[in-house]
């Protein structure tokens, strides 16, 4: 993916750049609001990572609002130290697609950036069916089949699996699952998400030879096609 990082702190910026390039992405950088806005409007990016408080008179929300006013729908992830719920709401209202607060774990940022990048791709048209390897989800009948065999899942398990399947091949963090599948925005002290995922595994992976849901250490989970595993 082609990414733009607008961030004034060089340490954080370089850290993100390095991490993204290691993960195989192409990334441009801007250290202030003016350069950031210039790059954002003149180049085509898959995702823009935007700091909110920037030097140069133009802050992150200004850039975001300018972009959206120009009918530019590039997914934007706001990265900010302003962590209040109200600030988050302000960011989302200004047109951002996701909001990550500092300090952040790189794995979380990467997972969210990749989730956003996928969303912008054309294959994300309304679908009635998702297939990942031997797994297929019928979104209308809410049915799960693997190798043609029907797997019975609870409605919430279906939503969990659907979210994983929509982001197949991408890391999905626990926070993302809690936010997107359950719509909860807090940190449970107990490992609620792990338990739900492990239950899902019992149904989706256990009776079969090769697992689909994999745990990514220090990050979250990934649903990967069992067909091209090893290749």
């Amino acid at each position, binding site marked *: 993916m082609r990414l733009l990082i607008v961030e004034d702190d060089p340490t954080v910026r370089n850290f993100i750049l390095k991490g993204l390039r290691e993960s195989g992405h192409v990334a441009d950088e801007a250290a202030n609001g003016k350069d950031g806005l210039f790059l954002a409007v003149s180049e085509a990016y898959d995702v823009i990572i935007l700091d909110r408080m920037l030097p140069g008179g133009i802050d992150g929300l200004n850039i975001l609002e300018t972009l959206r006013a120009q009918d530019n729908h590039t997914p934007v992830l706001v990265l900010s130290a302003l*962590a*209040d*719920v*109200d600030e988050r709401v302000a960011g989302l209202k200004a047109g951002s697609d996701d909001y990550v607060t500092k*300090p952040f*774990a790189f794995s979380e940022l990467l997972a969210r950036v990749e989730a956003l990048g996928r969303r912008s791709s054309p294959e994300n048209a309304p679908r009635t069916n998702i297939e990942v390897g031997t797994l297929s989800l019928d979104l209308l009948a809410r049915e799960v089949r693997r190798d043609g065999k029907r797997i019975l899942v609870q409605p*919430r398990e279906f939503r969990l699996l659907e979210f994983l399947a929509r982001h197949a091949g991408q890391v999905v963090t626990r926070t993302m699952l809690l936010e997107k599948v*359950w719509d*909860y*925005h*807090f*940190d*449970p*002290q*107990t*490992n*609620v998400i792990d*338990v*739900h995922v*492990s*239950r899902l595994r019992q149904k989706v992976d256990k009776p079969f030879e090769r697992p689909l849901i994999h745990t990514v250490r*220090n990050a979250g989970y990934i649903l990967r096609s069992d067909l091209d595993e090893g290749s």
Partner: protein
Amino acid sequence: MPPAQAGKAPHRSKGRLRPVMQRLSRHLHQHWPVRSVGLTFAMVYGGVFVVSAIMFLSFTWWNTARLLNDHIEHAITHDASDLLARWATAGSGGLSHALRLRIEQDIGGDAIYLLISPQGQAEGGNIDRWPVQVAGTKRFYQLSLRHGGGEMPVMVHSWALPDGQRLLVGRDVKALPMMRKVMTQAFLWCLLMVVLLALGGALIVQTLFRHMVTAVARTTAAIAEGDLSRRIPLNGSETDLVAVTVNRMLTRIDKLMRGVRQVSNAIAHDLRTPITRARTRLEDAALHAKTTQELHAAIEEAVADCDHITAIFDALLRIAQIEAGARRQAFAPANPTQLLRSLAELYEAVTEDAGLKLLLYVPELPDIVCDQHMVSQAVANLLDNAIKFSPPHGTITLSARLVRQPPGPTGVHARADGPRQALEITVTDAGPGMLPADMARATARFFRAEAARSTPGSGLGLSLVHAIAGLHHGEIRLASGQHGTMDHPLENTRTDPSPATLPALPGLRATLVLPLQAPGDH
């Protein structure tokens, strides 16, 4: 009138009147030269007093004058109708005779009569010629006439007789202006007295007002100096309305200040520990790590420590933010039944995994006005705690019910008449419970009971629940569990707990009380 119109008419007139009133009051507010409220009150009082006195006196004056006038007019009309009757029975001669008789009998000499022929010659009466002003026969004339000794103010009325004769009947009204003069004088004196009284009253009002405000000002000044324990004394008057509000505000400021102090103490004390740990780990790795593997491990642990510190910071900031009451705009009606069932669904898996049983007693409940995310988080915190402290094979209960809540002692609910309805959400666990002394301190930041020292956590969970309850004008109550004995019948959605499997632990029962409609919210 149809009801729609009845409702519409006053609304429309109000709509037209309101901007005018607003503009007027704004104008007055901007251009009113007096900056003292006490003086303004006094002036308004004096003004109202004087204006009403003037209105009262003028009304009396005008009424008395009119009464006298009426009296004279009545006498004239009466006299004339008598004379006209005489003319009708006895003709012109009889009338002249009656006139003569009356003039002779009129001792005060204030009656005036004149009868003239169609040609204008006087045929009787006590004045010599017809006054030129008296042309019509429809009304009373007030004029000056030469009569008796000299010029006299008189009131006259004329009648045309069918044969062309004309009759004039009148009364001497020299007493009337005199009367008016006396009355006017008396009223002017009255007015002077009224003005003096108004000034005196205004002075008293101003003094009283200043006295009232001084009590509030003294207290607030003391508070501003830093004495947060002072409160405005209540005296049972209307000023208590202000006093109670200010006192409540002071209590809140006091609480916030204490909270800030407590947070800074807590940060100083409790955050140093994980920071020190992280730092030590990194320094130790930098000095002593032999392999890159060791170094990586140390760094990873330090990162975990940092994450923990961040989590504590976030929780602290969130509590402080909630306690400051900043997040009221997210309040909306939400259904607690759905909310709790959905939370139970999230946590059921964890409890089962931990060998615990989660029982749900949630009947269909009406909507409550709340911040849905906050309430979810509060209940989630309670469930987290319950899971953390329950021994294996224990049972956790999540129940909810409606209760009538008596008016709170803090006065928060005093505005509503009588008890208001509240929602009680209770999480009961089968854990070791809490000492009563600990329960009182459990919601303090970073407080951890001795028994809980070894478990993971920051001691902020209940503080957050407490803050969320406070934001909703509710409260959090802790009590011993007495597991399995529900003191209220509830719709049982699951099987009963089997008491045989329960270990003999007191358990903890945490109840979140939320008013159905938070006071002061719409």
